[in-house]
C-alpha cells in the first residue's frame, strides 16, 4: 500500500464519526447516468464466449456459486442434501469443482457444518433479521453471533434500507460496524438490497457505505424482493470496489444474488468482472453468485462441452 492510500484510508475511516461528513462524502461521489450504465452493461453482455473460454468460465462460475436455500420450509434433510451437492456438484464427473459456499438461514447452519467440514466449501449464513432487517440492533447482532457460533464462516447481513432512504447514513454505517465486530473472524457480506434503493446513485453510495463500514463483500440482493441482481447494478458495484481499492488499497468482493439462472447470465457477469475490475476479482474469494438453480444449468452446459450433446435436467440432482 502506498503512502497516499494509507492516508486516504485513515481519512475515510474518520467519515463514520459524523453524519455530515458521511453525507458530504457519499453525495460527492460521481453520479451514475442510468442510460449510460445500462448500455455499458448491455454491451458487455454481447461478448461471445465460446469453446475453451466457455469451459474455463463454467468451471470458474461453479466455484463461485453460493448454493443457496432460504425458505421457511428448509429442514435438516434438505440442507444436508444441498451441502452434499455443493461438495460434489456432478457425481458423474469427479473433475467438476466444488462450489464456493452453501448459504442458509442460521438455524440450518449446524446441519450444513457437519457435512461441509474439511471440504473446502464455505458456509455462509444470512443474519441480521434477513431479509427485512426490521428488528432492534441487539437482535440482529445476536442473530449474527449465533450463526457464527454454529459454524458459519461467512455472514450475509442486510443494511437498514429504511434508514438509508431516510438519509440516516450514520445509522446504517454504525450497524454495519457493529455487525462487523460481531462476526469476528468470519467474512462479512453486506446486502444492499439494490431493488429497494431505486437509483444507481444510491447503489454507489450504499456500496461505499458498506465498504467504509468494513464489509468484505458487497452483495446485491436478498432474493426476497421483486428486483434482484441485474447486470448494471453489478457494474456500478464493481466500479465501486475498483475505486475503493484505488483509494484505500483494500480489496472488497462482489456478490450478485437472485435471478441469475443460466450459464449465459453467469458468463455475462464474468465478462463484466473481467473488463471492469480485471483478473484480481476473477476468483471465488472475490466474486460469488448467490443462486440455486444456476448450478444445474452450469452443470448441463459443462456436460455439453465435454460430451458434445445437450443434457437434460433428469441427469442432474434436484437438491
Amino acid at each position, binding site marked *: 500500500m502506498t503512502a497516499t492510500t494509507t492516508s486516504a484510508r485513515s481519512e475515510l475511516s474518520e467519515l463514520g464519526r459524523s453524519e455530515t461528513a458521511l453525507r458530504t462524502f457519499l453525495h460527492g461521489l460521481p453520479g451514475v*447516468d*442510468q*442510460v*449510460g450504465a445500462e448500455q455499458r452493461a448491455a454491451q458487455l453482455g454481447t461478448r461471445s464466449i465460446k469453446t475453451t473460454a466457455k469451459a474455463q468460465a463454467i468451471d470458474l462460475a461453479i466455484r463461485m456459486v453460493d448454493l443457496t436455500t432460504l425458505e421457511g420450509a428448509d429442514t435438516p434433510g434438505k440442507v444436508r442434501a444441498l451441502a452434499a451437492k455443493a461438495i460434489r456438484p456432478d457425481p458423474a464427473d469427479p473433475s467438476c469443482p466444488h462450489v464456493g459456499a452453501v448459504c442458509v438461514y442460521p438455524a440450518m447452519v449446524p446441519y450444513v457444518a457437519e457435512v461441509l467440514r474439511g471440504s473446502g466449501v464455505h458456509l455462509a449464513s444470512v443474519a441480521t433479521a434477513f431479509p427485512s432487517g426490521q428488528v432492534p440492533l441487539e437482535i440482529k447482532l445476536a442473530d449474527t453471533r449465533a450463526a457464527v457460533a454454529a459454524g458459519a464462516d461467512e455472514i450475509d447481513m442486510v443494511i437498514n434500507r429504511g434508514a438509508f432512504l431516510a438519509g440516516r447514513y450514520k445509522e446504517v454505517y454504525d450497524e454495519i460496524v457493529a455487525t462487523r465486530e460481531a462476526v469476528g473472524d468470519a467474512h462479512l457480506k453486506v446486502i444492499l438490497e439494490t431493488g429497494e434503493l*431505486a*437509483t444507481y446513485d444510491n447503489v454507489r453510495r450504499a456500496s461505499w457505505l458498506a465498504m467504509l463500514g468494513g464489509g468484505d463483500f458487497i452483495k446485491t440482493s436478498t432474493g426476497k424482493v421483486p428486483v434482484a441482481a441485474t447486470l448494471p447494478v453489478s457494474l456500478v458495484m464493481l466500479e465501486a470496489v475498483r475505486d475503493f481499492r484505488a483509494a484505500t488499497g483494500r480489496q472488497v468482493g462482489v456478490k450478485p444474488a437472485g435471478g441469475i439462472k443460466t450459464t449465459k447470465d453467469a458468463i455475462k457477469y464474468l465478462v463484466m468482472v473481467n473488463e471492469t475490475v480485471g483478473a484480481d476479482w476473477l476468483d471465488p474469494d472475490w466474486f460469488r453468485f448467490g443462486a440455486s438453480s444456476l448450478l444445474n444449468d452450469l452443470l448441463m452446459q459443462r456436460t455439453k462441452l465435454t460430451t458434445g450433446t445437450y443434457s437434460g435436467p433428469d441427469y442432474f440432482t434436484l437438491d
Partner: protein
Amino acid sequence: MSERVAVRKTYKLFIGGKFPRSESGRSYLVQSSNVSLASRKDARDAVVAARAAVKGWAGATAYNRGQILYRAAEMLEGRREQFVALGVPGDEVDAAVDRWVWYAGWADKLSQVYGGANPVAGPYFNISTPEPTGVVAVVAPERPALLGLVSVIAPAIVTGNTVVVAASPTEPLAAVTLAEVLATSDLPGGVVNILTGRITETAPTLAAHMDVNAVDLSGVTDAELAADLEVKAAENLKRVLRPAPADHDWSADPGVARMTTLLETKTVWHPKGV
C-alpha cells in the same frame, strides 16, 4: 419674403450603429445626392461590426427581437412621407411596413414550427432547434429599393443573424434612410450594416471574407458575377441564397425559405433516467 434655405442631408454609410463616411473619402453622385462610395475596407469594418453584434443579438430573447422589429415597422410607418419624397411609391412603403410586421411576428414562432422534439428509438430526450448562422452578407435587390431591401434584411435578422448589406447602387437613398429608421428602433448597433456604392467593389470582399457565414445574392443581376461570388463563398462553405430571378415579384408572399436558409439546426440529445 425670401424662401428658407433647406438643410440638406449627407448620405453616409451605416456601420456598427454609426453613420461614418467611407474611409476612402469617396462618394458618387446618384439620385441627385453625393452618396458614400464604400470601399473594401468599409466592407471589412462592417463585417467586424456585424460579428461583434452577433452574441448580443442572437442571445437576445426571441420576444425581444420581435419587439424590436415591430418597433422598426412603427418607425418606418412614421417616416412614410420621407420615403415618398425620395421617390418610393406610397404603396411600396406600405408593403415594406407590412413586411416588417410579418417578419417581426416570426421571431418567437420559427423555433416551434421548424424545430421540436424528435421521437428517437431510445431512452433519450432529443430536440432540434433552429439557430442563426451568424453574419450574413446581403446584396440587396436593385429595385424595388425599399421593399426589396426590407425583404432581404428582415428575414435574416429576425432569427438572430446580423447583416452587412450592399444596398442598391442605383437607388441607395432609401437604404440610408432605412438605416435612420433602424437607428431609432432600439436595434443594437452592428445588427444591420449598410454599404452604399458599387456591388463589384463590396460584394467580392464580403463573399470571400472568412468571418462571414452566409451570402444572400438576391440583388446580383450579372450571372458571371453571381457565379464568381458563389465560388468565393465556397472557400469557407458559406450558406448561399442564389440571385432572385429577374422577374421576381417582391410583393408576393415571401414564404419562409429566406429565413430557413440562414439558419442552422442544432439537435441536442440527453438520456432520460433517474
